[in-house]
């Protein structure tokens, strides 16, 4: 066994610190693979690449689709679905999340095909499961302010509705 003072940080991490072959979870591993293959991959390719069963590969791909990290298409003449990556995060600082009661919203800017995209991801925290992704939407950067205006318009509409309801009750 190694002497205690001979054990390095890299020994503890099982890697060279900061190296690109970082030991990540299978899900991150699959996501990196998809991002390196923007032309799309199928379940068999993922299963072979990550050395996991096809069932497990399909499960992970399904989860990543639910999280809007990937999208999927069924091409004519092909038996299986093809999975494609959604845009990757532009910069780590362009990502932030805030809690609103049980709901957590993570906002992040991603590279899009034509224009950057704002991803709004809804997460939920429960004691049993910790924090889980519920789903997400993408808004093209050019429309973000208009969507904010749309939200405000809807809030005004709701307030007016409540006000009218109160007046009727009186």
């Amino acid at each position, binding site marked *: *066994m*190694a*002497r*205690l*003072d001979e*054990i*390095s*940080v890299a*020994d*503890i*991490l*099982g890697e060279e*610190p*900061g190296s690109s072959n*970082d*030991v*990540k*979870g*299978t*899900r*991150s*591993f699959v996501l990196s693979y998809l991002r390196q293959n923007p032309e799309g991959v199928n379940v068999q390719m993922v299963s072979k690449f*990550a050395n*996991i069963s096809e069932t*497990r590969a399909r499960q*992970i791909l399904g*989860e990543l689709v639910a999280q809007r990290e990937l999208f999927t298409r069924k091409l004519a003449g092909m038996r299986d679905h093809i999975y494609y990556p959604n845009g990757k*995060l532009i910069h*780590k600082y362009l*990502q*932030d*999340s*805030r*809690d609103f*009661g*049980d709901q*957590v919203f*993570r906002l*992040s800017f991603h590279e899009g095909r034509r224009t950057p995209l704002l991803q709004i991801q809804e*997460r939920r*925290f429960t*004691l*049993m499961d*910790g*924090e889980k992704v519920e789903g997400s939407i993408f808004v093209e950067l050019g429309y973000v302010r208009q969507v904010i205006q749309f939200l405000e318009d809807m809030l005004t509409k709701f307030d007016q509705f409540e006000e009218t309801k109160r007046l009727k009750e009186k």
Partner: protein
Amino acid sequence: MKRTTLVVEQQVQKQKLGTWTGPDLGLSTKSGYLIPYGKSSEDMEVFLRYSNVLKDGQFVELCGFSIYTMVKRATALEESFPFNDFRSAHPVLVSFPPDVIWLGREKGAEVLNDGIEELLPPGEQGFEPSEVAQIAQTFSELARSSRKTYGFWQGIVQQRFRGVKYSKLLMEYAFAAASRVKAKAMTGIVPVIDPATPGSVSMAHRTNLAYIHHQNDLLEQGASLVPAYLYTIQLNSGMVKPDKWTPRHRRILQNAKAALQLESQTGLDGVHLSVRGIDRISQRRPRVAVLLRFIDGLREICDDAKLPLFWGRSSLAGLGGLDYGVDYASCPINLGGGDVYSDGGPRDELPKFGNLLNVHSRDIWNRDQLVLASEQGELPDLGNVRNMPTDTELENPHDYRLHFSKPYNVAGIRYLAEDWVSHTRGGEIEPGREYLQTFDGFAGWSAH
């Protein structure tokens, strides 16, 4: 760029009052405070049921190895006492006491096994639940077989499971435990430092650096729920010998300083100290003198970095630590300063009722002492909590602890915390040591 900053608002010699803030973490908490420490699911139930006794906005420290059982209890109570309400009002710090791995006792090995089985996320690593069970068993076997040695630490850097180092898996587990309760801050699971093994100093330091790298990676990947990491120093009681200041103490301080001065210190937000055997140390001034010198060294390092110094499971001795610049000291709500997990509970009936803090008479009472004293008068009224047990509680140890002594102790810890703050605001020097000098068992903290 670090994620948090400690702003000192008032200083009286070494003692400080301030605010620890971190907008990314949603953190803004007053510092210079004695906080409660919970080690079990029963303690979690006390916090949830009697959260009105805790100071709003103030930290609670939880034992990381018990998170899995605390979560179960909190889930059972969720409808009446929502955990989300609790954690919104009280930021959580998760720490991992050293006795689980150092002593390798049966109880400690069990909680290590069960905690890993419950919390190590199989989805993230791609492990099947049966594989996680295998991993958990390996950890607990390593702990059992390397009592009071460093075999556990040598084993986990040597062995891999499907290509992943066990040392890395242990880090994943620590983060999973802290994330499960949405902790704002956490310590690592690091080797305790023992004078008989000089290599433990560098091993503890490198384990901390590994956590910082891991933390940076998580932040880099945009992971959510990444708590502030506290550089973790765990001392065996043999490191605090009477009037014995050694090069090893200096080395530990140098290491902590180097870590806090790392250029890329995104993943490091303070220092957390814990000392085994604080009850015995507190009885002797020459031992307390060494501990205070060490705390003073850490204070200087933390002050320079504008980051907080925590002293975990300090018991009431934490009040003396606050005098020397500790920003948060925690006191277990059963008032014990010893190891967290022991094999088997007490066989006699009386110890099952636990301890009760009388802040005015500066004493810790068992149930019989309370009954005797109550003939002369009541315990001090600390607000928000009953100061006398019911007849049923006097007959039932579980009810007594859950509904009377532990909530009352939480109120007592808050009372002492606020009293210390108030004296410091008034410019009084070393009010903690002043209080402790006439407290039975803390004679070593006497300033004179």
